[in-house]
């Protein structure tokens, strides 16, 4: 096979026009060679045999019992809760509890921990969420203009059902409840440094509100204000702001305790330095990603 032929094959495979491998062109037929004494084993395609079924059942039960036994034995050997001298009783937790309020300015110490002391971890988590959304997109995306005929018929049927069927209860409930769900989500995000919650949980509440609305009124209604372009732009802006806000610790020698933004009075809504904007960024990324999951699982597009 010449290099040019290889290249054309590779290009055709990349463009999705041909199967990649040439070895499937010739049908594979196992031969009975004199080198091997036994005949090639036939692969059964029908029902599994009775002893196979019993073998799988018994081995599954045995494996489960062994795993449960190992885990229980491990748990019994753990040190008692609150014993001094265990590795988790070190000065880090003490410092967080004693000086966290002073150093981060957040009343909710969990927020202060994950968005100030450990802000870089949270940045990685947001990026992982975005990457997950992209992977789901690669796997499940259906082009609206070139659907397979069966799928296209199903989509049309779905649209007709959604337009004609009178889902009074669901629609009225959605119209009434969605603003409150979104408002509660925004409250949880914005109050992340004062009360339990924060960017992640608030973002998921906002995403659930959007999903609820899309279930009742159709994805087309949501796509009037939130489509794929908005998803890309919002995700890019939020991740860029987060990266810019936290990368200065690299340039300042990783000692970012000296924060130029004033901490404010603990307990006020505008306090805690960078925690509030970072919470909003994380919340938006999470809300976008959750709605993207729903849209891609449901229709394959949004």
């Amino acid at each position, binding site marked *: 096979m010449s290099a040019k032929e290889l290249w054309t094959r590779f290009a055709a495979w990349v463009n999705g026009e041909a199967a990649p491998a040439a070895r499937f062109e010739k049908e594979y037929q196992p031969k009975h060679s004199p080198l091997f004494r036994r005949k090639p084993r036939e692969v059964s395609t029908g029902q599994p045999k009775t002893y196979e079924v019993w073998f799988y059942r018994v081995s599954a039960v045995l494996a489960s019992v062994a795993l449960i036994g190992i885990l229980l034995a491990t748990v019994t050997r753990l040190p008692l809760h609150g014993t001094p001298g265990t590795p988790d009783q070190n000065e880090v937790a003490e410092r967080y509890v004693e000086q966290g309020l002073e150093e981060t300015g957040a009343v*909710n110490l*969990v927020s202060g921990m994950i968005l100030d002391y450990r802000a870089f971890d949270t940045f990685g988590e947001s990026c992982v969420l975005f990457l997950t959304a992209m992977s789901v997109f690669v796997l499940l995306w259906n082009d609206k203009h070139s659907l397979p005929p069966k799928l296209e018929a*199903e989509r049309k*049927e779905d649209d007709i059902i959604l337009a004609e069927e009178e889902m009074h209860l669901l629609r009225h409930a959605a119209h009434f409840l969605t603003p409150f769900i979104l408002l509660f989500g925004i409250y*949880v995000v914005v109050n992340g440094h004062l009360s*339990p*919650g*924060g960017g*992640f*949980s608030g973002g*998921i*509440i906002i*995403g*659930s509100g959007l*999903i609820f609305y899309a279930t009742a009124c159709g994805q087309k209604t949501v796509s009037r204000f939130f489509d794929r372009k908005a998803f890309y732009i919002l995700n890019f802006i939020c991740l860029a702001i987060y990266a810019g806000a936290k990368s200065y610790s690299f340039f300042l020698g990783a000692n970012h305790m000296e924060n130029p933004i004033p901490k404010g009075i603990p307990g006020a809504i505008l306090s805690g330095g960078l925690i509030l904007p970072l919470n909003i960024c994380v919340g938006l990324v999470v809300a976008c990603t*959750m709605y993207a*999951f*729903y849209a891609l*699982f*449901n229709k394959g597009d949004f």
Partner: protein
Amino acid sequence: MIYLEYLLLIFLIVCAILAPLCRRLLNAVLVFAAFSTVTAILWLLMQAPDLAITEAAVGAGIDTVLFLLTLKTAHFLDGTRDKK
């Protein structure tokens, strides 16, 4: 209050045993949602409200929706296109 915790923990064990034994996958999803809700209440009783909010939103909310959508896409729900 400690008895309420014991009750909820027993409920958790029952849910965990029940979920893989369900014949219909829809029931398994609902049992899983109940498991997550009770876990959220337990986090609240153990004074971890941040975890409780996240567990309630992710475990009982988004996970259930995604499982139901997967069942619908794979035609495992009664009353959908393939099983009328």
